[in-house]
């Protein structure tokens, strides 16, 4: 099975969440949310981000390995809490399996290619279906990203039934049935949070293992531990092994959702201009701590805090030399900015971000550069330092501060980013942006040799990898709903629902024009 076939279909369904009454959205390599303000585009984008951050953190190899290493710091308890106990037969089987593995990593990988015994497999499935950590991290990230802390009730639609629901569904891309092999259903509101995880018979534990670096490392560590463990410790080691098998199985099964995501909030340009002020305030606050009473600084939402943190720590991440994303960053600078974004770490470790315009002009701080530069500078930096293929970049309102021609160019650049393997999620109000995507999708129907003379030909997008979703207020005032916009090759491609606005403006234009003309008739 190819890696493309393994990438699952992922669907996010919500009910009574923020302003959204209900939505069911399939997450494709390029997912676009379009519609009026206050219909929940950002709510859904932030929800996606929060869930992905929670999953990616849980599966992060360094996190997994740290958990294992913590075993070393204390003698594992022979007596496990009841909810962590596994059957003696499973303990025996897991230990036996661990002992059979060779020590070098390649052999460990090879060993995992053999079928996991049924009993072990069913235990892994049970662990995935019953573990509570995922629900807790979903809730924590949701509260953090929306800046509501533990009061998730504030994210429930006010006219709803007091509870919101978010469901992540995973299905094999090649599967024609409607069955999800893995589903996380998070319900919150009325002071409660609950996660219901379910797996179908299709969920494959077996295929999870060979590709998991953290599992290979954990296995090696557990084997070492096993060599000097007494019988009492076997249960802990077996349970840990089962946990790692479960994490690897989930990691494999959720595809891109288990990889890092980055969020560029709509107010990024203002942050770019003011980030040094914000950092100074934080430093000031830290210095004053213990000397004066702490002032109440307003809380940042998690997406904004993460954005600031990425900016601050950007210097620690080397540039992605030779990566297609760095190439796109250079293209963005050349085609849209007409200059280069320079990032340095200052003496205070705060980032110094400047714009070097073409010609003889020296570097200028972003606050003196055009708003377009402040808007796009973080995109350049993210592509240069952070975002890798397979990861997700979420951009709110990419059209902000951009001339329509620049919006179209930026849309093409994001399309190229998608084609290089980065998953992109966009919220937008821009007809120009959506129209450009429609051109790129339509262009993909031409043979590559037949489109080389068409502007943007290198950014052609297959229709299957694009999902454009229209958010609209329900006519009864019952919250907003979300529907996919079908691509219409005989019309305008994607019709985002702006015809009504254009026609209303036209009608006013004709009324004014004809009133003036009729005045002259008299």
């Amino acid at each position: 099975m190819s890696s493309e076939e393994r990438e699952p279909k992922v669907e996010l369904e919500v009910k009574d969440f923020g302003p959204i009454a209900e939505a069911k959205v399939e997450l494709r390599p390029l997912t676009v949310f379009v519609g009026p303000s206050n219909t929940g585009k950002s709510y859904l984008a932030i929800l996606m981000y929060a869930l992905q951050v929670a999953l990616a953190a849980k599966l992060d190899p360094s996190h997994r390995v740290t958990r294992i290493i913590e075993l070393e710091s204390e003698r594992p308890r022979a007596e496990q809490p009841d909810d962590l106990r596994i059957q003696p037969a499973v303990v025996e089987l897991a230990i036996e399996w661990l002992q059979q593995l060779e020590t070098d990593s390649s052999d460990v990988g090879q060993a995992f290619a053999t079928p996991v015994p049924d009993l072990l497999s069913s235990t892994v499935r049970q662990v995935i279906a019953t573990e509570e950590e995922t629900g807790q991290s979903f809730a924590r990230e949701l509260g953090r990203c929306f800046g509501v802390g533990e009061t998730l009730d504030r994210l429930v639609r006010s006219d709803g039934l007091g509870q919101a629901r978010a469901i992540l569904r995973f299905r094999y891309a090649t599967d024609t049935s409607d069955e999800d092999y893995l589903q996380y259903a998070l319900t919150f509101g009325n002071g409660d949070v609950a996660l219901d995880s379910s797996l179908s018979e299709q969920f494959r534990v077996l295929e999870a293992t060979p590709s998991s670096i953290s599992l290979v490392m954990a296995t090696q560590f557990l084997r070492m531990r096993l060599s000097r463990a007494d019988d009492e410790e076997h249960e802990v080691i077996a349970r840990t092994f089962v946990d790692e098998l479960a994490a690897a199985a989930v990691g494999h099964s959720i595809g891109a959702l288990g990889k890092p995501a980055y969020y560029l909030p709509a107010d990024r340009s203002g942050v770019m201009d003011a980030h040094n002020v914000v950092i100074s305030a934080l430093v000031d606050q830290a210095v004053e701590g213990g000397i004066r009473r702490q002032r109440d600084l307003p809380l940042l939402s998690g997406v904004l805090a993460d954005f600031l943190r990425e900016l601050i720590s950007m210097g620690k991440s080397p540039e992605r030399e030779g990566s297609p994303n760095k190439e796109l960053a250079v293209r963005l600078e050349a085609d849209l900015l007409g200059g280069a974004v320079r990032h340095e770490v200052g003496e205070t470790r705060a980032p110094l971000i400047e714009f070097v315009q073409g010609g003889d002009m020296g570097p200028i701080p972003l606050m003196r550069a055009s708003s377009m530069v402040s808007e796009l500078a973080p995109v350049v930096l993210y592509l240069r330092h952070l975002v890798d293929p397979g990861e997700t970049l979420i951009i709110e309102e990419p059209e902000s501060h951009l001339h329509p021609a620049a919006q179209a160019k930026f849309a093409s650049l994001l399309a190229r980013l998608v084609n290089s393997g980065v998953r992109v999620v966009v919220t937008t109000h821009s007809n120009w942006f959506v129209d450009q995507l429609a051109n790129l999708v339509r262009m993909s129907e031409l043979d590559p040799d037949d489109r080389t003379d068409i502007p943007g030909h290198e950014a052609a997008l297959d229709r299957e990898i694009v999902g454009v979703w229209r958010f609209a207020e329900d006519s009864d005032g019952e919250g907003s709903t979300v529907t996919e916009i079908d691509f219409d090759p005989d019309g305008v491609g994607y019709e985002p629902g702006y015809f009504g606005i254009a026609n209303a403006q036209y009608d006013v234009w004709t009324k004014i024009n004809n009133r003036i003309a009729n005045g002259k008739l008299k």
Partner: protein
Amino acid sequence: MSDFLGLMRSRIPQDCLAAECKDAGCSASLDDLEADWLLLDLDCDALDLVAVTHADFILVTSGRTIACIELKGGTLKGAKRQLQASADYASQHVASNEQILSFHPILVHEEEFSPARVREWARRKITFRGERFAIERIPCGGRLADVVS
């Protein structure tokens, strides 16, 4: 009926007066028009006009308003030319030597304009007695009263 509307009626073959504004699978409502009115069907044989070069109807009201109306169920091809021809006909024949206080070229159509088409249509003006009028639009099934004042 006003003297003006009576005069207009006398200039029109009675067989060509219509009670409904309807053609090509599309219609416009005559409800709630503020003044008395008469509707001239330009496809009427007695007028001997070439249908493809004329709009479908001319609405005349007692308030000295004239509206040329083209109904399009599908493509909008030819609409501007048809409205212009009917504006000329209204000025030179129906209302010749009469003062007209208000003129409206109206396109009644099925689909909304796309934003790009809006810009295209904003440039398509109909000339009536030396003044240039923008083509007003209502959807099929819409009310003429919404644009005819």
